[in-house]
């Protein structure tokens, strides 16, 4: 049972993150500190990009890691790797904060306390380190039409919908949908080519 919980799908290895998260269930403070040291920078960078204010970003990051400490059982290592799940938690928290702050209670209003599902990595994904992964993502996104890149960023970092992005960029709704989907598919191909 122990190995089943820790072992990611289609892999015989137990990831260090999965092991540390499992230790959190035993209220292991050292394991928590290690997880924080491993991932706090990327989590903070993402949250700061969304909320645009350092003090607020720290507040949100604190919430994210406290949520991890208190709800570590919500992460199921059998369903996927830890980092993407943690990033999804952080993004949701930051966007919730942004929406609450601007009082724009929109479509995700009823999901503010929910944690995102754990999701698996695609078959082609290999263990790229953070630095190389960031370089690749930035390179692919820089190759996009600036408006296309802007549309994706408005969606990801500001949580806007298709319609809201169309209004913001003053472009037809169909164009926005097309830009976003094609941009993401190019990113996918770019990352696949890298690995």
């Amino acid at each position, binding site marked *: 049972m122990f190995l089943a919980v820790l072992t990611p799908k289609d892999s015989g290895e137990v990831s260090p993150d999965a092991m540390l998260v499992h230790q959190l269930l035993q209220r292991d403070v050292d394991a928590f500190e290690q997880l924080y040291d491993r991932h706090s*920078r990327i989590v903070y960078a993402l949250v700061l990009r969304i909320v645009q204010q350092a003090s607020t*970003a720290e507040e949100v990051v604190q919430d994210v890691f406290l949520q991890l400490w208190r709800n570590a059982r919500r992460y199921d290592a059998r369903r996927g790797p830890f980092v*993407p799940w943690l990033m999804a938690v952080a*993004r949701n928290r930051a966007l919730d904060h942004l929406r609450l702050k601007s009082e724009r209670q929109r479509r995700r209003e009823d999901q503010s306390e929910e944690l995102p599902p754990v999701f*698996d990595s695609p078959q082609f994904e290999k263990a790229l380190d953070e630095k190389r992964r960031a370089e690749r*993502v930035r390179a692919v996104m820089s190759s996009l039409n600036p408006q296309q890149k802007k549309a994706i*960023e408005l969606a990801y970092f500001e949580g806007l919908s298709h319609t809201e992005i169309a209004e913001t960029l003053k472009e037809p709704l169909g164009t926005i949908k097309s830009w976003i989907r094609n941009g993401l598919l190019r990113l996918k191909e770019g*990352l696949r080519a890298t690995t």
Partner: protein
Amino acid sequence: MSNCGQFRELTEAYALGVLDAEERTAFEAHLATGCKDCAQAVEEARWLVNQLAYLAPNAAPSDMLKARLMQSVRAEARAAQGSVEPKASIPFWMWAGVAALLVLTVYSAWDARRLQKEIQTVNQRAAAEFKQREQLQQELAAAKRQAHILTDANSRKFAMWPHDTQMPKLEAMWHPELGICVMGEKVPMPASNHALQLWLIPKAPGSKPTPSLTFWPDAEGKLVLMVENPPDVMADTKALAITEEPTGGSAQPTSTLMWVGGIS
């Protein structure tokens, strides 16, 4: 499966969270049918969307954040541990220390009380000795004054004769600056609640006697009376007299003059 193609185009947008409410509801309804292909596509799309996080500029949180966070987590861990584990027993050496402290405290309290009593006794003794010393000093001063009155050439000596011939004669000495000294032997003790009182009889005709001290002879009948500050001066005084008056004295004689001595 027949609808998959239609929904597959929405997969990335769904994972990104940009679908409008109507599209999102329709897509989730399709996923709820158990379409494994679309579910897997969504998982892959979520991973893909997650890569966008690397577009965020590099940044690092402050050390303060980690400190705050670790403080909260440690507090929660301690609280959880405290609610589950029994409290650690107090080691023997600590009990021994507590016992020693208790004994020391009791001894200190007892010793403090003992010292307090000793200090009180010493203080009382010192006060008594001081009082005795003062009395002796007063007696010594009186004796000196008396000796001075009795020996000084400026003193005037005169006899005080008894009204009752059975009574002894008294001797008086008056020094103009040091006062009056009256002495005698075998002087009878006045009645109960009474004392002897000295009077100064003025020369001025019609003047009333001036009251002075009240006194008693000692148990053997010896009398030594010192009046340091007589109420009148010798030049204006015709005679000294003694009567028996109620204790505390009287403003004017209430009984027969028992002794009278004229100042020549």
